[in-house]
């Protein structure tokens, strides 16, 4: 790998001097200030912070759903000008279309990315094969003809993940993907996500408020200060070997050290004042 390529791989997703100001009825609100972040190709990044610190805003900026007031965002060397299928999003509330079956929900995404009019221009059979493969990847083949309201919350979120992964995105964006799930389901899905990410090797950015989730899944944890004018307070490298096992890590000294680092950041230095 020559130097230029190496540099590009190190700055696969790039956030440069981001300022984000919202105009509301009560006036302007400076949500984010001076955000600088480089994400490596294949890296798993978590963004953690108290609620209201603008971590979802960062994710929406990378997704292209929001445009920054100032600053620039790049993905794979190109400026992010709007949403696109190369940056797939797993939404917090799954956002499946309730009138479509699980299969149809995933197919909608697959059809757009690989179907008629795309570069690949695949046939219907190929598209269906892709869809089935994505649903099988999250272990939901038996429920693929069910509608979202007929399956559990964890299953819905899996379909959301399948939909995102089926698009073969360059970057996977996860907005508190397991926030609405019970602890056991969450742990299961975290383990599955780790396996899937290891297989696909795609870059991921996850917003979370769960310290254990952040450390377990990530290569780096980005900790944000409280808003308004929230910024990146500290970035923690998670040098734990993969594959990671939650049971072994529970006893691991390094893991617990990292965990207390994050906790100290969140609850000592940047404690949220309870109104």
């Amino acid at each position, binding site marked *: 790998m020559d130097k230029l390529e190496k540099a590009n791989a190190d700055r696969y997703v790039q956030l440069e001097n981001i300022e984000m100001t919202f105009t509301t009825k009560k006036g302007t609100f400076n949500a984010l200030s001076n955000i600088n972040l480089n994400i490596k190709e294949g890296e798993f990044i978590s963004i953690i912070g108290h609620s209201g610190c603008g971590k979802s805003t960062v994710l929406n900026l990378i997704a292209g*759903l929001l445009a920054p007031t100032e600053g620039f965002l790049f993905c794979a060397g190109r400026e992010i000008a709007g949403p696109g299928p190369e940056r797939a999003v797993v939404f917090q509330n799954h956002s499946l279309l309730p009138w479509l079956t699980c299969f149809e929900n995933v197919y909608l995404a697959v059809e757009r990315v690989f179907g008629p009019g795309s570069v690949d221009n695949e046939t219907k059979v190929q598209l269906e094969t892709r869809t089935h493969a994505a649903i099988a990847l999250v272990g939901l083949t038996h429920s693929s003809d069910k509608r979202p309201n007929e399956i559990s919350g964890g299953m819905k979120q899996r379909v959301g993940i399948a939909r995102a992964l089926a698009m073969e995105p360059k970057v996977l964006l996860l907005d508190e993907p397991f926030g609405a799930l019970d602890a056991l389901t969450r742990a299961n899905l975290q383990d599955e996500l780790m396996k899937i990410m290891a297989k696909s090797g795609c870059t991921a950015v996850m917003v979370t408020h769960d310290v254990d989730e952040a450390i377990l899944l990530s290569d780096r944890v980005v900790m944000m200060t409280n808003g308004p004018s929230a910024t990146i307070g500290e970035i923690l490298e998670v040098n734990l070997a993969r594959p990671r096992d939650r049971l072994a890590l529970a006893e691991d000294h390094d893991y617990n050290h990292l965990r207390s680092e994050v906790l100290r950041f969140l609850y000592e230095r940047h404690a949220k004042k309870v109104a």
Partner: protein
Amino acid sequence: MTNSTIAIDKIETTKLKTSELALKARALFKWLIPPAFGLLMLLAIWTIISQQSPNLPGPIKTWYSAIELFSDPFYDNGPNDKGVGWNILASLQRVGLGFGLAALVGIPMGFIIGRFEFASKMCAPVISLLRPVSPLAWLPIGLLVFKAANPAAIWVIFISAVWPMIINTAVGVSKVPQDYMNVAKVLNLSEWKIVTKILFPYVLPYMMTGVRLSIGVAWLVIVAAEMLTGGVGIGFWVWDEWNNLNVEHIIIAIFVVGIVGLLLEVVLTQIAKKFSYE
């Protein structure tokens, strides 16, 4: 010993059966009694008023007149004397045409207004200005433009039915959750896919509400419009019977209009239920 047990068992089961039957009867009773009571009250009030006012026929007189009338609903003695069946069908046809045109125009317009802010702001003053106008005020314009009574009546139905469809569809479109629109954005869906896969299924229940309101208004308006335009139709029939001073027939017409309106409502509610994705 065993015999007596069996006998007791038998008694128990029959008891159970009768109690089950009693339960069902009670449910039926509960379901039937209040509406029946309401209708009886209506008949009672009607009877009392008819006894005070000698020109107003009572329920019994009207009933016999109705039996006579409906024994031959489809006779045809020239353009001014047709059976009540023909009149109802003529009115339904006008409502169907006017309403169909209103749906054809109103639903796509509602989509455009709900989807594009510019269109919404553009149409808002026009809609606010024209919507409160009584549909009958449009009748002279219809007569002037179409130079015939029948298209003018259909035009009035159109103009009265189009607003609820535009407004309800537009409200539905504007209420589509941002989450679904974000999905559309992230997937980069084409406008056609957004309409068919996201907007249309979401808006359908709102649209059906608009359709129901529209058909209600259309059926309300047709009677008045036909009184003014003449020809064949339930509205004209009412006016004709007033000129004949056949008050029984006017009362029958009121019931007929009510029952047909109710049936339209029931049918559309059933269709709406079919289309709901939940």
